[in-house]
């Protein structure tokens, strides 16, 4: 540990959360999240333009709150970090424009970083007041990032220099599947917590829903890729068949069985990646980690296979600025040069671009 760890403010606007985080090295000082989720509820999913408008209004209030909570003054900061991608273009641009201007107004360097690698970076943080600090993350590790926008399996050999994409969803993100299935069961948005609630008391083995890209032929071509579009359609077919037959839809069983299919395929592929690469470590990140069954199954499967499971605190798993600040602080600490001011928002930034 250096004598003085870098003090970094991180800005995250890649989806519907305006996140401002402040960290000193690996110490979390503030993690303010302003979500526009409620504004999207009536549409059943994130509306990019609604999210981007909300970012513009939430940004300065969130900055103020983060500074107040951390007791940090702007001129004490060593750097500004910002998500430059991947994510929703219009939403990302709000953060990029604001971060550049803030850095220039303060005469501070800027670090443009990758959102997905940021989710991994969240794990270096020790939460303030969370008791004894956890042992530091070890590399290499496999990381499974699951949210409404992403479902990615990463091989992280080093957080700031070597991240490889093993696989990702070829259609819907897992969180999106939760939203869509919730809708067809008549449950509100966001679907994740609703499905979780509805599944309580349901039988996860009642209906055998398909596990996408899991038959031998698909595994050959898509060993670490995911697909949830077919699963969603299978659930819809099953529900329609029951309705057409005039039967009551057993919501608890459908929700539990669907949730089981998602958790099963996610963990099967993640554990396979750990075993194939001889890496006994798995890190979870993304909003879907809030799902109780996913965490439970992850614990079971990891224990059965001798894999160490790491799950950052939930408010560091969902999109947040602290993880962006944390990744920025790692770059600063390693002596990396700041980003040039001409970077843009890159909606498809690959995980190999850790810093833009």
């Amino acid at each position: 540990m250096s004598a003085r760890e870098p003090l970094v403010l991180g800005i995250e606007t890649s989806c519907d959360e305006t996140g401002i985080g402040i960290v000193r090295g690996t110490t979390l000082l503030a993690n303010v999240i302003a979500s526009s989720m409620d504004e999207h509820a009536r549409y059943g999913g994130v509306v990019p333009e609604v999210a981007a408008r909300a970012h513009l209004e939430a940004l300065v209030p969130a900055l103020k709150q983060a500074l107040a909570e951390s007791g940090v003054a702007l001129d004490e900061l060593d750097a500004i970090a910002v998500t430059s991608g991947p994510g929703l273009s219009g939403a990302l641009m709000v953060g990029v424009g604001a971060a550049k201007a803030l850095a220039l107004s303060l005469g501070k360097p800027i670090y443009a970083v990758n959102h997905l690698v940021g989710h991994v970076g969240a794990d270096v943080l020790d939460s303030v007041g969370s008791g004894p600090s956890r042992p530091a993350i070890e590399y290499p590790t496999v990381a499974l990032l699951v949210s409404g926008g992403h479902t990615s399996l990463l091989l992280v050999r080093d957080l700031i220099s070597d991240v490889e994409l093993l696989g990702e969803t070829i259609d819907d993100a897992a969180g999106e599947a939760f939203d869509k299935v919730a809708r067809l069961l008549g449950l509100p948005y966001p679907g994740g917590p609703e499905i979780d609630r509805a599944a309580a008391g349901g039988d996860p083995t009642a209906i055998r829903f398909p596990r996408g890209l899991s038959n031998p032929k698909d595994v050959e071509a898509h060993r670490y890729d995911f697909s949830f579009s077919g699963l969603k359609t299978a659930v819809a077919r099953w529900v329609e068949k029951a309705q057409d037959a005039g039967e009551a839809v057993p919501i608890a069983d459908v929700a539990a069985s669907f949730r089981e299919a998602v958790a099963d395929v996610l963990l099967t592929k993640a554990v396979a990646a750990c075993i194939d690469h001889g890496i006994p470590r798995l890190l979870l990140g993304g909003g879907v980690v809030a799902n109780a069954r996913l965490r439970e199954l992850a614990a079971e499967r990891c224990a059965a296979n001798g894999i160490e499971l790491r799950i950052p605190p939930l408010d560091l798993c969902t999109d947040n600025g602290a993880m962006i600040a944390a990744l920025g602080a790692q770059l600063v600490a390693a002596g990396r040069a700041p980003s040039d001011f001409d970077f843009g928002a890159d909606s498809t930034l690959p995980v190999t671009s850790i810093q833009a």
Partner: protein
Amino acid sequence: MLLAIDTSAGTSVAVVDREGGVLAEHTELDTRRHAEVIGTFIAACLSDSGVAVAELSGVAVGMGPGPFTGLRVGIAAARAFAFGAARPVVPVISHDAIAYELGSAEPLLVVTDARRREVYWSAYSGIDAVGLPLRAAGPGLTRPDELAATVPEIDGYRRLDAASVSAGALGMLAETLFYNRRPFAVDEALYLRSPDVTLSSGPKRVS
């Protein structure tokens, strides 16, 4: 002295002084590079003008009307810069800067591209004694073929189709407003359009 930013069309950044005029200005007409150029333009304007952040008394920003994705970049940058510099944001209507720069005593209709076959417009009856444009109607959004019906007495106006908004002009307009104790615009992005969303009518059948 003010930092001035407008991204309602292309990207324009300037440093202005009420007495010294436009000290530095950088403009990019490309309407798809706001996020990329905003930082380098701010840095270049500060360095070209030799003005330190602490010497600025505020950040003037064009609130539109303008296509939303680009417009937001400038407003986000202005708000963040002002916050970092502990200076106020000075919101200005972007069309007013176009009219102010022209300085025409004759009635004027400013028209800018709103994409999707629509235009933004503002009508001015002339300028006042200190050169401030007198906006009589607008800003509004309409289809080009409906402009005549939308703007009252359009025949009497000279029409100006603008492809860019000068941050230098916008900054000087803000200086003039401030010096003459006139109100600024409301600190609210002028999208003039609702987000494109349609409420779902419920899940569709798959079988």
